[in-house]
């Protein structure tokens, strides 16, 4: 076996080498060095140490989880000795708590939206179907506020957004009910996740994008 032949099959030698290849390694120091070096690189690569991310990574993740309502308030613990063993769990409170956390977040931003709407209703120029100005990314206090904003920015889209919000809220309602009745059901949880995702999409398209 020549060096060229040996090096041609090198990529395939992961699982070991045959007698001919082994013989070549014994007789050719160049190929033996090459083979040894490549193995050393592989061995050392496996032992590379992991790096620590900055603490801000978790801070950002946690903030996003809260904003998306994925972090919910913990449930009160039952006291089994005082009550009969519960046949159902409080896990159904989780999606309701998610809604409360989300609503609290919206209420915190309420004054920004009120200011925004007051400013827009004072303008005397005819409503522009989105002048291409991206609104600041403040979270509205409620869907009514969002719809009012849409009405001032793009009147022709108001009915559409009203309908879409109704549809996603109905989905959330049904999914929360199902999750409450079947707290361990993964399908119910998936429906709930999807419903929240749809609501986030409608909010995003109404508030954060240049689209009407």
């Amino acid at each position, binding site marked *: 076996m020549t060096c060229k032949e040996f090096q041609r099959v090198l990529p395939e030698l992961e699982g070991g080498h045959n007698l001919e290849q082994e013989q070549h390694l014994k007789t050719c120091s160049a190929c033996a060095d090459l083979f040894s070096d490549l193995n050393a690189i592989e061995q050392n690569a496996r032992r590379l140490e992991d790096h620590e991310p900055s603490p801000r990574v978790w801070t950002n993740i946690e903030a996003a989880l809260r904003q998306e309502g994925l972090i919910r308030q913990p449930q009160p613990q039952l006291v089994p000795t005082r009550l009969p063993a519960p046949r159902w769990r409080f896990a159904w409170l989780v999606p309701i708590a998610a809604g409360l956390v989300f609503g609290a977040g919206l209420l915190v931003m309420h004054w920004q939206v009120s200011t925004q709407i007051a400013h827009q209703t004072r303008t005397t*120029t*005819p409503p*522009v*179907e*989105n*002048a*291409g100005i991206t609104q600041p990314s403040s979270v509205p206090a409620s869907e009514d506020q969002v719809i009012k904003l849409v009405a001032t920015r*793009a009147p*022709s*889209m108001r009915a*559409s*957004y009203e*309908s*879409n919000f109704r*549809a*996603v809220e*109905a*989905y959330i309602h*049904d*999914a929360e009910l*199902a999750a409450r009745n079947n707290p361990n059901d993964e*399908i119910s949880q*998936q*429906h709930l996740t*999807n*419903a929240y*995702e*749809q609501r986030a*999409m*409608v909010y995003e*398209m109404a508030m954060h*994008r*240049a*689209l*009407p």
Partner: protein
Amino acid sequence: MYRRNRIAGLIIAMLLLASVVAAAENRKEFRFRVHRHASISVINQFGPISVKPSSGHEVLITAILHSDKAEIDSSHSGSRVSVSTHLLAGADPDSGLVEYEVSVPADASVSLRSATGPIRAEKLHGDVILEGNTANMDVRDLSDGHVHIKTLDGPVTLTNVSDGHVEITSVGGEVNLISVTGPLVHVNSNSGRIVYVGDFGGGGEYSLMTHTGDIEATAPAYASMDVLASSSQGKVINDFPLQPVHTSLVERAGSAFAGTMGKAASSVKLLSFSGKIHLKKR
């Protein structure tokens, strides 16, 4: 003679009309030189956007404005190109209408947003991101890139899309998937109906979920899949002779079924809250 004069008159009238129309339109063209894997973004509130592949490393954007109530803003940095319609005071869906035709290198990633559309993309290999309100979205002959679509009420049709992730979120828009395969195909719809015609191939994860919309999936007899279908309040119909699998899902007649076909290469989930689900055999 009279007939000849009449025809000539018609031709002149048509030419005059065309010139009037042309005058009313304002055509703008933008050319950008880009490198491999360019990123192109087009934001257009009202009007169509159509994207096709071009040869070479150039992005060509042709915009037809229908009034002076709209302007085109563009920016180009390296291989990033961004074009958006800027509506002026008094613009509405008619006067603010702009039509875009875009040619990009096939490996470019494109991001297209239009409230009214339609939006069309074809024969691309980069990632495709579409967003619209009522825009009709038509995507065809894509491979290797990821496809992300968000729509409120616009219908979405994907035809011959493969080898990338497909993620679609729709509230009321119907979603049609024809010959769509890949490692991940995920549709999240509210009332929009989902129609899938294909073989659920590629050993991927297919998840078609709705709140109230119906789900209709048609696959060939040779499809290799691990299926889970459930509708909490709707009817569920299965045409396949599935091999049963152990699952925690309670198989109630008419509302759920689970099983495998062939080697169960792909995972297929058809889940609805109250829509009807029908797994049809082609």
